[in-house]
């Protein structure tokens, strides 16, 4: 297992190289002259050119990329072109807020979605099932920004229960969490329901009943663990999407997070900031996927022994 984790972490290297290169290409193709954008329209052409040279923009594209990467591997994320602030400390300062909202959103989605899905499956075609299924369908299809606005209208403007912007108390986390998690919630209700329905018709569930186990044990011990396997996969994949999705939520609720920071940097073509954010997000996605795979192996011993098997086989080959 450890060997597998190390192997997966080594995979970070090609992923980061690939992602940074792609983003570097795209951001450089984006129209707009950085020097002109920073100095404003009243600056002379000479001053703009000089500024661009200072930023190193007169050099060829590949040279600039190699230069950026050589600084990156030494942990140097560079300085923002606006305000000359170092990029890395700024990112590390903003990232926790984004991560917290994402984790809350995914916990909300799974914590509410899985029980509702189980209820829906166990009482198939009941009123509760119909309500939960409809609810899931609505949640899965509602656009996130629209939900943000509606919630603000209801909870902040009319009911005056929750604050509509900032991130200072626990109350501030509620609406971003719900808004960000709603799509995943819909998905996890529907997935849990369908996979649970499949599992409770399996022979081993009948075996458990024939042993004289309580219905609760049959559902929650035997069937649930098996039916969680696809749900965990899907929610894990969605977590990566949520990291991107925070952009909307952070914009609507004016949360000082990484998403907001990244969007501002893209519009201003602040290349060091964009690149820094992308690197951090890419690393996060790889690590999240790794965590999902570990949870997955814990849920399903067949997968675990596959990992161990492949490592053992390789070791045997190495001995030979």
């Amino acid at each position, binding site marked *: 297992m450890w060997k597998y984790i190390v192997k997966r972490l080594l995979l970070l290297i090609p992923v980061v190289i690939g992602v940074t290169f792609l983003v570097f290409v795209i951001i450089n193709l984006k129209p707009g002259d950085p020097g002109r954008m920073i100095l404003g329209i009243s600056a002379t052409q000479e001053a703009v050119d000089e500024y661009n040279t200072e930023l190193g923009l007169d050099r060829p594209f590949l040279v600039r990329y190699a230069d950026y990467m050589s600084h990156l591997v030494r942990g140097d994320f560079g300085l923002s072109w606006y305000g000359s602030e170092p990029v890395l400390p700024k990112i590390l300062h903003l990232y926790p807020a984004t991560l917290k909202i994402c984790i809350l959103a995914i916990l909300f989605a799974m914590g509410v979605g899985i029980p509702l899905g189980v209820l829906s499956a166990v009482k198939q075609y009941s009123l509760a099932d119909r309500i939960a299924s409809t609810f899931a369908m609505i949640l899965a299809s509602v656009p996130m920004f629209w939900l943000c606005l509606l919630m603000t209208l209801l909870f902040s403007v009319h009911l005056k229960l929750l604050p509509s912007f900032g991130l200072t108390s626990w109350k501030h986390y509620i609406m971003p969490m719900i808004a960000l998690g709603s799509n995943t919630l819909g998905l996890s209700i529907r997935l849990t329901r369908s996979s649970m329905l499949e599992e409770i018709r399996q022979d*081993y569930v009948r075996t458990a009943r024939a042993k004289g186990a309580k219905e609760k044990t049959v559902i929650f011990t035997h069937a649930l663990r098996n039916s969680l396997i696809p749900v965990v996969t899907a929610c894990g994949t969605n977590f990566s999407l949520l990291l991107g999705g925070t952009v909307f939520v952070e914009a609507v609720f004016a949360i000082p997070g990484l998403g907001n920071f990244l969007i501002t940097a893209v519009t201003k073509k602040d290349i060091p900031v964009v690149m820094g954010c992308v690197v951090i997000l890419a690393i996060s996605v790889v690590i999240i996927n790794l965590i999902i795979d570990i949870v997955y192996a814990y849920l399903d*011993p067949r997968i675990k022994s596959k990992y161990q098997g492949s490592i053992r086989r390789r070791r045997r080959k190495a001995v030979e």
Partner: protein
Amino acid sequence: MDREETLLKIDDLYVKYRTVDDDVYAVNGVDLELKRGEAVGIVGETGAGKTTLALSILGLLPKGVGEVYRGDIYFKGQDLLNTQEKKMREIRGAQISMIFQDPMTSLNPVFTVGDQIAEVLKLHGTKQYAREQENAPKSDRNENKAGMSREAIDARVDEILELVGIESSRKICYPHQLSGGMKQRIVIAMALACEPDLLIADEPTTALDVTIQSQVLAMIDDIQKRYNTSLIMITHDFGVVAETCDKVAIMYAGEIIEYGTLEQIFDRSLPHHPYTVGLFNSIPDLTSDKPRLEPISGLTPDPAHLPEGCYFSPRCPYCTERCTAAAPSVTQLEEGHIVKCHRFSAESGTEGR
């Protein structure tokens, strides 16, 4: 222990499955009596209602779909169909247990086999344990019948694994790490862990290859004799019946159409139901020169649209007008050998095979 004591009595049992289109009549008037320590084989083609019969004994018919709409099942004199779910749970796994058909899917893939066997012990405890509890001084007595200690459970898991021929060190394995034959042994170990009074084996060897089949059968036979367990062996294989059973019931379209001792059913010189004759003709006979088998023509009737009169009439070579008009009643051929066919009814007077 009284060998003549009736353990299970099924009385005129009817089961149907409700589906969106039609009601499916799976069991249509089954009578069956089983004494302690006796082994009865239920033989029939696929779809004859054998598994449905077994599931209705355990009260495990799919909820809202399967329904016993007539008849009674008595186990040790207790009316199982009117027993509360809580009481049924105490009976399932402890007094009546079932070996399911497909060992590949009957075990939960995410738990070790040891834990799966231990689960049934945690729920019910063993008889040995119950006896110890009764003899223990009142102060030491554990009121919770299922309160076996972890060590006692572990010891029993080891013991039962040895009994089914699996090294106890394999209990930490997950089902996918075992072969099909070993999985079936685990399923059997689970069914036997609490020493049930009645064991229902639903085609326990169908999913296994021939060499493992005979091992598993010998094991079931051995265990059945050792614990004086009653056995219902559901199968479509006469070889399995011959190896394990005392009595045989031939089932067709949800009815027992012939019932007798092993000798009575297997003696081909005695008169039989045409279906039984057909079944035996479908088995290759090593001593005869016949180049081809003689299978029964046609298919089992659709249980949603059963034919009028005798259910076997559309496929029966001896079918007469009377067969399509009215269902035959039970005729006793000799002591303990009964058959449901018009050819043997008193009015017809024609004897023969």
